[in-house]
C-alpha cells in the first residue's frame, strides 16, 4: 500500500508521502498513467512518450511536489491537450521506433478507438473530466484537484461532456 497523508479528506486525491521512494511511485502509477495518456492522445507511441515526459517532470520535482499522483496526471492532461506537444511526442516516438525499440502498448480495438476519438473531440476540459471519471473511476473532487478547478466546475464539465458525448453517439446520457 502506498503511504497516504492522513490529512487527505474523503474524495480528495490521496497525497502520497514524500518519503515514498520515487521508484515505487513510478512502478505503481506508470501503467494507469500510460492508459490515461493513450486515451487522451489517441496514439500508443505518443502515449509512452507523454507518460515518460510526465514522470520525468515529477522526478525533477519529487522533493517539492505535494501530490505526485495528481500532478503526473495533470502534466499528462496538459501535454496531451496541446496538439503541438502531441505531434512533438509523436515525432520523438517515431525516432525511437526508428531506433528499433519495441512498442509495448496495444492498439485500441476499432470501436473503443472510435469512442475515445469522440471523447477527444469534446472541449478539452470535458474530455479530460470524462476520461478521468470513466477510465480512472475518479470522483469529481479528484478530477477537480487534477484539473485545478473547483469541484462544482468539474461537475459541470462532466455533465456537459456526458450530454455532448451522448448526442454525438446518438444515445442517452444515462
Amino acid at each position: 500500500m502506498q503511504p497516504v497523508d492522513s490529512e487527505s479528506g474523503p474524495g480528495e486525491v490521496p497525497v502520497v508521502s514524500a518519503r515514498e521512494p520515487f521508484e515505487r511511485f513510478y512502478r505503481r502509477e506508470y501503467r494507469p498513467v500510460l492508459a490515461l495518456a493513450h486515451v487522451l492522445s489517441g496514439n500508443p507511441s505518443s502515449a509512452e512518450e507523454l507518460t515518460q515526459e510526465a514522470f520525468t517532470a515529477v522526478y525533477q520535482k519529487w522533493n517539492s511536489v505535494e501530490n505526485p499522483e495528481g500532478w503526473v496526471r495533470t502534466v499528462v492532461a496538459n501535454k496531451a491537450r496541446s496538439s503541438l506537444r502531441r505531434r512533438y511526442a509523436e515525432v520523438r516516438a517515431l525516432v525511437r521506433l526508428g531506433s528499433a525499440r519495441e512498442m509495448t502498448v496495444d492498439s485500441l480495438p476499432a470501436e473503443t478507438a472510435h469512442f475515445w476519438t469522440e471523447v477527444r473531440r469534446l472541449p478539452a476540459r470535458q474530455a479530460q473530466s470524462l476520461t478521468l471519471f470513466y477510465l480512472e473511476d475518479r470522483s469529481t473532487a479528484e478530477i477537480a484537484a487534477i484539473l485545478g478547478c473547483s469541484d462544482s466546475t468539474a461537475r459541470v464539465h462532466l455533465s456537459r461532456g456526458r450530454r455532448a458525448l451522448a448526442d454525438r453517439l446518438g444515445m442517452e446520457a444515462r
Partner: protein
Amino acid sequence: MNLDTLARVHAEEARRTVTSARIPAIDEIIRRGTRRRWSVGLVWAALAGMAAVAVVVVGSLGTDTAPSTVSPFGGSIPEPAGDAAFLEWSMQNGRIGREGILEVRLNADEDRPELAGVRLLLYPTLQSNGAYAYQVRIDGTGDLCGFLEGTFEIDRGVGQFLNDVFPAPDEMNVGASRPFFPYICEPDPKPGTVDAVLIAPFDLLLEPGVLTMSNSGGTVRFVVSND
C-alpha cells in the same frame, strides 16, 4: 446500452491495452531528467550569450548621447515625479513591437551620479497570440553592476501588463530585492502604433551592486510610437 455502460466497457478496453506495457527502467527516466536539466542549462547559456552580445551592441550605440527631455518621435517626456529616477527613451533600429529595440535610458542628474551610463532596455517580440512580450534589461557601469531581465506582456488592444510573468528575483541575473513591475498602459495602447503610453509606477533606488525598486515613488513613462 446507455452512455455510462458503454463508457465503462471502453474504459476497460483502454486499460487492457497497457497491462503488458513495458515499464521503462527507472534509470531511463532519471537520464531524461538529467538530460533535460542540461538542455535547459544550455538554452539559458545560449540566451545569456545572446544577451551579452546585445548589451555590447546596444552599448556601442549612442553612449555619448547627452540626456534629453525631448522625444525623438515628437512626444513629450514627462517630468520626473519627486525623487524618482527619470527614464527617457529612444528607438533603435525599427519599430517597437516588431524588430525594433526600445531603449529606455535612466537620466542621471547631479544628485544621481551613480545612474550615469545605466540603461534600461526593452526587447519586444510579437507573440503568436498577438500580444507583445518584452524582455527588460537594466545594465550599468561603475558601481551598478549586473543587469535585470524579465518578460512582460501587453495584451492586444488592452495594454494590461501581466505582472506575474516576471521571474522571482533570485532567478534573475542581478541581486535585485524585488522584480521589476511596470503595470499599465494608457490611453489606448496599441504596441506598434502611435501613442501607446506605458506607465511604470516605481522609482529606482540604486545602490552599488544591488538593484532595488519600489512602487511607492514617482511615475515613469515610456512613450511608444512608430512615427
